[in-house]
C-alpha cells in the first residue's frame, strides 16, 4: 500500500449524513472479481444522468454526469480530499466502497464527530487500503466544509500524518500574516505507523507465528469442527 506522510490537496464537499455503502458503490458492482476499475462506479446511482450508470464489467463505459450531483461540479476536478457528513460508510462491510473512493482520486476523507464520523467497518477498510479517515470535532469540520463549499476548487488543505494535523489554506485569507487554521486529529497508533510506512499487514502478523502456534496448541477438542457424519 502507498505510504501516507503529508498530503496537500483540494477539497470536495458532500455533506450528506448517513451516506451508506449501497450509495457509495451499488451491490451489482461487487460482481467484479478485480480489485480495480471502481473509480467511475463511485456513487454510480447518483452521479450520472438516468440510464448512464457505468457497465459492471467495464465501468469506464458510462453516460453523462448529472450536473446536480455535488461532486460533479467541474471546479472539483482533481480534488483529493473528500469532506463528508456524519456516519459515512454505514451499512455493508464491502471494501469495494473504499476502493471506489480511492480509485476516484481521493487520498483522505474528513468527517465530523470523534468516534461517529465513520461507520466502524468502513473506517477499518479505509486504514487497510491507505485511505486516511480523519474525524474532526463538528466545529473544526464545519470550518473546513464551509471553506470547501464557499470556494469550490480553490480550498486546499495540508494533511500531516506525522503530527496529526490538518491545515486549511483559506483562499480568501486576508493578510499573509494571518495564521492558517490548523486542526488536530488522532488515529490509532498502530494504523498511523502502518500508513506512514506503507506496510503489508500479513507480513507484520506472521512475525507472531510462534504465539499463534502456541495458542492453537491449547484449543480444547470441542472447539474443532470435526465432521461426525462422515
Amino acid at each position: 500500500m502507498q505510504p501516507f506522510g503529508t498530503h496537500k490537496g483540494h477539497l470536495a464537499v458532500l455533506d450528506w449524513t448517513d451516506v451508506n455503502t449501497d450509495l457509495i458503490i451499488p451491490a451489482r458492482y461487487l460482481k467484479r472479481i478485480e480489485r480495480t476499475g471502481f473509480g467511475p462506479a463511485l456513487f454510480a446511482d447518483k452521479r450520472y444522468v438516468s440510464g448512464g450508470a457505468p457497465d459492471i464489467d467495464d465501468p469506464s463505459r458510462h453516460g453523462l454526469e448529472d450536473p446536480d450531483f455535488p461532486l460533479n461540479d467541474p471546479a472539483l476536478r482533481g480534488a483529493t480530499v473528500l469532506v463528508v457528513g456524519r456516519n459515512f460508510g454505514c451499512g455493508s462491510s464491502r471494501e469495494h466502497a473504499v476502493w471506489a473512493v480511492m480509485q476516484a482520486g481521493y487520498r483522505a476523507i474528513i468527517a465530523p464527530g470523534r468516534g461517529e464520523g465513520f461507520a466502524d467497518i468502513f473506517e477499518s477498510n479505509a486504514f487497510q487500503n491507505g485511505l486516511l479517515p480523519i474525524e474532526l470535532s463538528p466545529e473544526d469540520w464545519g470550518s473546513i466544509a464551509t471553506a470547501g463549499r464557499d470556494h469550490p476548487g480553490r480550498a486546499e488543505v495540508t494533511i500531516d500524518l506525522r503530527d496529526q494535523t490538518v491545515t486549511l489554506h483559506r483562499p480568501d485569507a486576508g493578510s499573509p500574516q494571518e495564521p492558517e487554521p490548523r486542526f488536530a486529529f488522532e488515529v490509532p497508533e498502530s494504523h498511523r505507523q502502518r500508513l506512514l510506512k506503507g506496510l503489508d499487514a500479513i507480513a507484520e502478523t506472521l512475525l507472531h507465528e510462534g504465539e499463534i502456534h502456541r495458542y492453537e496448541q491449547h484449543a480444547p477438542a470441542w472447539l474443532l469442527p470435526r465432521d461426525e457424519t462422515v
Partner: protein
Amino acid sequence: MPETLFAKVWARHVIAATDQATLLYIDRHLVHEVTSPQAFDGLRLAGRRVRRPDLTFATVDHNVPTENQLDIRDPLSRRQVEALRANCREFGLRLYDIQSGHQGIVHVIGPELGLTLPGLTIVCGDSHTSTHGAFGALAFGIGTSEVEHVLATQTLWQGVRPKSLGVEVTGRLGPGLEPKDIILAIIRKIGTGGATGHVIEYFGSAIAALSMEGRMTICNMSIEAGARAGLIAPDETTIEYIARNQRPFAPRGAALEAAIQDWSTLRTDDPSAFDRQVTLDAGQLVPQVTWGTNPGMTVDVTGVVPRPEEVPFTNPEDARRALAYMGLAPGTPIGEIPVDVVFIGSCTNGRIEDLRAAARVFQGRKTAPGVRALVVPGSEEVRHQAEAEGLDRIFLDAGAEWRQSGCSMCLAMNPDKLQPAQRCASTSNRNFEGRQGPGGRTHLVSPAMAAAAAVTGHFTDVRQLLG
C-alpha cells in the same frame, strides 16, 4: 470487577497486544463468492496458503438465482461463483455449493451445520455476520483485505476494544409481534449510528423467551444500529439447539459435556459492567414498519408517515430526500400505503420459524390482486423442512412464489430485483436507496407483517388478521 460477556470472549482470543492494537484468533471463517475473489488472488500472488482450511467454510448465496439454480444466466455472477469453486479446490476448502444439501445464505447455514457455538470468534466478509452473536459468539463482518489476512494467518488485528452497550428488553412479545419488531424498535430508539464503536449485548425477559432463530434475527440487525457486533448469552435454549438434529460439526458426547462446562461462565456478571445501557419494553410494542431510507426511519403500523422536521436523528433536508425517494407524503397513515411486491426471506428472516409465521397468515387467504409475493427459504435445509411441513403448499395456494435458497431480493445482485418505483414489503435488513434495485422502495417488516401486506395489498396491522 464485573465483566461483560463480550469482554470475556474477547479476552480468551488475545494472542498479542500493544496498547493500541490486539491480535485476536479467529475460530471460524465463513466465506462467500462476493468478497473473496480478490482475497484469494492476494494469497496466490504472495505465494501463501490458507493456514486453517479446517476452520474455513464456503458457500454461494448472493449471486445465485433462486430458480433454475444450476443455470446462472448472468455472466458476471457465474464468473464469481466459478471463481469461488476454483479457489476452494485450489486451497482445499469445504464448499457448500448449489444443491449440495447444505447450500444457503452463509449466516443461515453456519448455525445449521453446528459451526456456530458460544464463546467463539467468527468472521465473514459480510456485515450481517453479527447474526452468529445469538449464540454468545463474537461475530462480525470484515472487508476483503481482512478476509485475505484471516485466510493467511487465522487472526485479525483489532484496534482498541469496542465499548459495550447493554440493551435490556423487558416484558414479553404480544400476539402478532415478532423478534423483527424488537430490533426495528431498538434501531428506531437509538438511531443508525446509536451503537457505533460499541458491541451490543441483548438481555432481559423478552430475550430469554426467544428461540435461537428469534435471537438470530435480532443479532443480525445489530449492524444497522452501527454496532460492531451483537451478542446474547448462551443458555439452555442455546444448548438444546446445538445438541439437536445431528448437526455435522456440533460437539457431542463427552466433547459437548466439556463445552457446556466451558460455556457456563459466558455471561455478563452484572449490568453495571456495560459502558451504556438502554431499555425497551417488548410488551408495549406495536408491529413496526420502516417508511424511509435507513432502518432507523421506522414507525408503528398504526402510525403515519412523519413530517421531515420530526424525524429523529435526521436533518430535515435528508428526511425530505428520503420522503421524495420513497414517494410518500407526511401524514399518510401507514395502513393506506399499497405494496407491489412482498419478499419473505434473507439472513434476517429466512428460517423455518419465519416461514411458519408467514404461513399462518397466508393460510386460507390469497395474495391481493397486483401483488407479487416471493418466499425464499434461507437454505436447502430450511426448504426441505418447510416442504415436509406443507408450508410450500400454503404459499403456492395463496398465489405466492416458492423459491430455492439464496440471498434473493435482499440486495440486487441476482435476478430477484425490484423495478424502479416498485414498493416492497420486505423481511430483509436494509431499506437504503436502490438496495433492492435502482429506484426500488423498500419497507422492512416482520414475516407475519409481510404476509399481511401480501394478502391485503397494503400495510396492515397483522394482529387484526390473526383474530
